[in-house]
Structures are given as structure tokens and as C-alpha cells.
């Protein structure tokens, strides 16, 4: 599904991604772990085309999409849920969902606002509310719902648990598992290992812009040395 090879990216002169290689198979939830500043968000932005990679390949369903514009990448079936959520604060919940809407995709049940509300019932109770007047958890649900409206095959989730209460995090995990059951592929960036562990099949660990550890989630949980080296603060 997604196949990233030796990806390099810069912010100005700063060399942030220094050869990231990772792959996510169809229907898999892949955790992208790493400390703050490791380059998780940058990896996602580079895949999404929001930051132009300086070299390397991003293959999505066999096609190299590196260097394409974000809207073209989105139209090919990659959904992006940014860390900062970036809700349109002036727009209502329904309108936010409308912005994300794209035509149905072959082989996938098309997403509608009603389906989003079924996944996140609390959103259904505030259809007309402006995005700016929602709690952090509600905004996080809305930003995921908005991306789902584009009927993605792969969804890039950047730290969805950040700043959320434990109950909400649990809800979030359930939602991700529900998406996985639908056959969606998920690349999940996280610092919260306990959350990542609830939903992920495999994990890649980033440090200083490169993948340092890769393997099954259970293996990472068993490998205390790797966790100490790359994850604990």
C-alpha cells in the first residue's frame, strides 16, 4: 500500500529527514514512534506533499507520488489528519465534513456525514456548531471524520491522542480499530506508547530523522532496551 524509500526532507537548510524507509501493507496499522522532534510529523507532511521531499521515493499502490501536490495525493486516496487538527473554526461541523468530501472509491463503502456521526456519536449532536466552539476531543474526532469523508485507502494520523483525556483516548482507539476492520490502512504517529499498542500491528521507531527500529508491536513491548534508547524521555 505505502512504500517509502530513503526519504530526505529539509526545512530551509535544516536536514530533517535523513533517509526514512518504511512500508505499510494493506489493512495494516503501522505505528510511527519517536520522541518529540524525531521527525514523525515531517515524515507525514513529506508523504502528503505538504513538504517537498528533497530525494527518495514515496510509492502508493505502486505509483511514485513524491513531489506531487497535496491535492493530487489526497485524490489518490491518502487522507491526512494533522497534529494541530486544523479545524476550520468558522465552519460548522457539517461544513467541515463537506470540505473533506470526495467521490466514492471503488471497493470502499462511501463515507457520509451520517456514517461519521455513527462512528463519533458526540459529533452528531452538534452538527451546526462552529468548529471553533468545540472541545479538543471533539475537534480531534471532527478532523478524523473530515478526512474520512474523502474515502481514503490510507490514513495518516498524526498524534491523535495528544492532549486528550483518557476516556476520549479510549474512544479514539476503538474508532481506529473500527477503521481497521473496514480495511483501511493507517500510519499512526504517536508518542503515547500505550495508545499505539492498543491499535497497532507493527511499529517503526524514528530518531533524528531515520528509522532506528522496526518490528512487530509485541516485539517492541518486549524489547526494553530499544524502548529505553528511543522512546523514554
Amino acid at each position, binding site marked *: 500500500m505505502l512504500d517509502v524509500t530513503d526519504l530526505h526532507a529539509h526545512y530551509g537548510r535544516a536536514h530533517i529527514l535523513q533517509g526514512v524507509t518504511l512500508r505499510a501493507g494493506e489493512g495494516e496499522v503501522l505505528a510511527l514512534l519517536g520522541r518529540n522532534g524525531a521527525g514523525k510529523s515531517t515524515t507525514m507532511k513529506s508523504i502528503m506533499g505538504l513538504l517537498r521531499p528533497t530525494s527518495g521515493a514515496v510509492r502508493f499502490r505502486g505509483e511514485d507520488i513524491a513531489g506531487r501536490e497535496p491535492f493530487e495525493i489526497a485524490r489518490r486516496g491518502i487522507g491526512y489528519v494533522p497534529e494541530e487538527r486544523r479545524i476550520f473554526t468558522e465552519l460548522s461541523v457539517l*461544513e467541515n465534513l463537506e470540505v473533506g468530501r470526495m467521490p466514492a472509491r471503488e471497493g470502499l463503502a462511501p463515507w457520509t456525514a451520517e456514517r461519521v456521526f455513527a462512528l463519533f456519536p458526540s459529533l452528531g449532536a452538534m452538527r451546526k456548531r462552529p468548529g471553533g466552539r468545540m472541545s479538543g476531543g471533539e475537534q480531534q474526532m471532527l478532523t478524523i471524520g473530515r478526512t474520512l469523508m474523502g474515502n481514503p485507502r490510507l490514513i495518516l494520523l498524526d498524534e491523535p491522542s495528544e492532549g486528550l483525556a483518557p476516556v476520549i483516548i479510549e474512544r479514539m482507539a476503538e474508532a481506529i480499530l473500527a477503521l481497521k476492520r473496514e480495511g483501511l490502512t493507517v500510519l499512526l504517529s504517536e508518542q503515547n506508547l500505550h495508545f499505539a499498542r492498543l491499535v497497532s500491528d507493527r511499529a517503526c521507531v524514528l530518531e533524528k530523522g531515520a528509522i532506528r527500529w522496526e518490528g512487530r508491536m509485541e516485539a517492541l513491548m518486549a524489547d526494553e532496551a530499544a524502548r529505553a534508547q528511543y522512546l523514554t524521555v
Partner: protein
Amino acid sequence: MENLLVQGLSGLATASSLFLVASGLTVIFGVTRIVNFAHGSLYMLGAYLSWTLVTQLPRGHLGFWGGVALAALIVGVVGVLIEVLLLRRIYKAPELFQLLATFGVVLIVQDVALLIWGPQDLLGPRAPGLRGATMVLGVRFPLYELFLIAVGPVVLALLWLLFNRTRWGTLVRAATADREMVGALGVNQRALFTTVFFLGSVLAGLGGALQIPRESVNLQMDLVVIVEAFVVVVVGGLGSLPGAFLAALLIGELQAFGILIFPRITLVLAFLVMAVVLVIRPHGLLGRAPSTAHAAAAPEPPYLPASPWRRWAGLGLLLLAVIVPPFLGDYALIVFTEIAIMMLFAASLHFIMGPGGMASFGHAAYFGFGAYGAALLVRHFAAPMELGLLAAPFMAGLGGLVFGFFCVRLSGVYAAMLTLAFAQIAWSTAFQWVEMTGGDNGILGVWPSAWAQSKLVFYYLSLALCVGAVMLLRRAIFAPFGYALRAGRDSPLRAEAIGMDGFRIRWFAFILAAVAAGIAGGLFAYSKGSVFPTYMSISRSVDGLLMVLLGGVKTVSGPIAGALAYTWLHEQLMRAFDLWRLFLGIIILALVLFFPQGLAGALGRREGRS
């Protein structure tokens, strides 16, 4: 009483027309973040095109209304062409570059209109069915004006429906807030921008087309309208449609009643309102602070001391400027003097734009203050030149002190617009305070003292003062003060955190720049022997901007190169071609598209510096 009612009603009609233009401008700005100077030109094109269509098409309802609608649509297509061919390439360029590019379009459209429709004012036919007048609350009022009064709210309502009840509108509102995110959700921003530009241009064209039964069509409409539209959009809050409507009402009524109450300061009123609004509400009546969270600005390259190559080039140039003039005729000496003065003017503007990071759209005000400071002394006290040249920077500095106090608190487009408002206030004062300034006739007889009467001596005097002042500005840039100024520009919070008073530093820089511009203005007054309000006009401010941007904001030598190139080019084009605006416009567009770093920046790349 009746008079008041008539004035109130015609204020409403004016407001409607203003709203049509301003709504297009504000919608375009909201999404593309481009301040489109050419919007007034689209309005003017709308007026000319509808004049042609309406006079050519068969008379009657279909001919008139069909002509108006067709004109608006053609203007829409012209807008799309501008967007696709020009603006699309420069969305990521600095704001001022975009402004410069759209100003290039203004120049081109002016000459194209001159070519097609000639210089004379054109009078349009009346609208069929709306020719006469009717009684409104006991007073006679023209039907067409009543129709216009209705147009504003109707257009506002239609736009509201479009933006709030259609998918397109939802996307546009989303893109206004965060266009990158909209792209990441699969929306082709480029196509969206083009459609927005189409809509905005149609509104401008419609605004112009609907004017033909009301006022004559002429080549000055573009700038008059764009300035008014800027005022409305800024007062309302950039990007806000209801804000634009409110502001259009305010300005329209103000103009209508202003004529009754303060006939002497009608021109100033709108700008006074804009200045007051911006001082009290820095983002306009209904505007919001722009979200800059997701704009990853590239770090500014530091200013480097001139390379040896550049030092030698500068010295060589100076040497030429000293040695050659004795062998030149009077005409060449006048041009040389003007170039020296413009170098100082451009360098002073660069000082606040480059190191200061503040866009000034009204720098001509301080140039004009200098000129009037000298000329008023001559006119009212028969002061000698030496005193006049001292008064010039003093007066300009005073202007900078007062205006700068307000301007440096704002940033970006709003700051630029406030400087524009102050410059227009200064200009209108010079224009309307006839007893003091002679108004449009200016102040004549501002001649140098006997010893400096010869063109050659005056040239050397100008050269010495201008080069001296430019060197002082340069010194300030590389002095600790200059570093502090740039620190405040690049990371205001950090600069404040280490105890710098950003406001004072910027204010002082503003005053310094005003003083330098004042010296230039004073010299200019004596070189021409006269002073006119046009010294403070928008077009002179734009000249300054062109020089700085042509030369490149990011280098210290930029404004020098820019002033040289621009003044020379302007002079040559004006002498060689009737259609000099057309050529100048094309050159500007070429520069914006191919040398976004400016001349000095392009040379720098040649030298292998970045």
C-alpha cells in the same frame, strides 16, 4: 431637511457602487491573500466595455442590460487571464511583489484603454426604464440611483447564499482560513483561486458597467476607485463581506454628508475614518487577525557588507557621477539631479521596508513634507534655500513622528494601508488647504540661492547631500541599532524577551526614514522650482516602491540600483514612447516573473552570493 434626505439617498447609491468593487477585492484577498491593485482597472474596463457594448447594441432593455452583463463577464475572463498568466506564478512571493505585479497590470490596462477608447471622457446612455425621477418621501430622486441602492443589498444577499449555501462557497471559506489544509483534503486550490478571481473580477466589472448612466467613463477611474475600495475593504476588515458592506455604507454616507458639513475636507474624510478605525481596531470593523500559524516563512538572509566587487562598482559610479557632469548639458544635469534625489528617496524607503520589515505604501508623504516644509517657508517667509533645506527634514521627521507612532504598531497589509491613509491625508490637505499651500496650483518660485542657481552646482549639492544621507542610512543598518531593528523584524517575541523595545526601535527607524525622505523632498522642490500636491500622491509612493523592489529589498545596494534603473528607464520610456506606461508595465511584469530578487539580488547571484 429635503436636502439631507437626498444626500442620504445618494450616499446609499454610492455605497452600493463601492460595495460592488470592494466585495470583489475582499473576496479575492480573503482566499489568495493578494492585494490586487488591478481591481480598479477591472472596474474601469467594465465601464469602458459596457459603454462600447451598450452604444453598439440595439437600444432598449436587452441592449442595455445585456451590454452591462456581457461587459461584466468579459471582465471576469480578463481577470481569469491575469490570474492564470501572472498571479498563479507568484502566490508564494512576498506581498509587496504581488502588489508590484498587479501595479504593472494597472499600467498596462491604462495604456490599452487609452489606445482603444482614446483620452476623452465618454458619456454613457441612460438606462432604459430608469430614466426619470420619482418622489421618495416627498423629494424628487433619480430612478437609476434608487435602482443602485437596491443593487448593493441584493448582491450582498446573493453572495451570502453563494458562500453559505453551496459547496463552492464552503470550500472558499475554508480556504480563506487555511488554504493548505484545504489542499490536503483533495481540493485543487489553483482551480478554486481561479474561480474566486473570476467572481471578484465580474463584481468589479459589474460595478464599473453600472456606472455609465451615472458618471462619465475616463482613464482616471481605476486609481480613484481602487483607493476608495482599499479604504472600504480595510475599514470593513480584509476578507469580510459584511464588513465591506458596512464600511461601504459608512464611507458612502460620509462622502454624501461630508460635502454638506465639511466641504473643505471631503477628500480627507474617508482616510481619516480609515486611520481612526485602524488605530482603534487594527484589523478593521469586522476583520480578524490573520492566522499566520501555518505560514512557514523562509528566514531572511542577513545583509552582507558590500563585496569588493560591489564596493568598486559603487566607487566607480560615484566617480563617474562627479567627473562626467561638467561635460553635460542642462537636460542631462536635471536627470542626474533627479536620479541622485530618487536614490535617497528609495534608500529611505528601503530602510523601513528591508531592515525594518514594514511595508510603507505612503512614503511619498515624507518626501512631500520635505518639499512643502521648504516651500512653505519660501512662500510665507521668503526664507532662503539654506533654511528651507533645513526645514525639509525637520518637517518630514515631525510627520514621521506622528504618523509612525500609529503605523509601526500594525503589520503587513494593514500597516501598508495605514501608511497609505496617512499619505492620502497629507495629500488631500495639500490639495484642499488652498490658502496655505496654493492647492492644485502648488507653490511656485522655490528657487535655490544665488550660489546654487547653476544646474551644475545644484547637482553637486544634491549629490553631496544624497550620498551623505545614504551613507548614514547604511551605517545605521550595520550599527547595533540596525541589528536590533532586524532582530525585531525576524523574531519579535525573542527580541522583546531580551529586553528590546521593538516599538521604539521601529518608531525611531520610521522617523529616520522620514527625515531622509524629507531631505530628498526638499532638494526636489528646489530642483524643480515648485511644489505640487502630486509630490505626495500615491503614484509617487508607488514609484518609490518600484525602485526598491526593482533593486531588491534584500540587499543594501538594492535601492540605489533600483532608483538608477527606474528613473533612467522612466525618463527614456517617457521620451521615446507615448505608450510608456504599457512598456513600463511589461517591464515590471517581466522583472517580477524573472528576477524576483530584484536587480541587485540578481547581480548578487551572478557574483555567487546568496
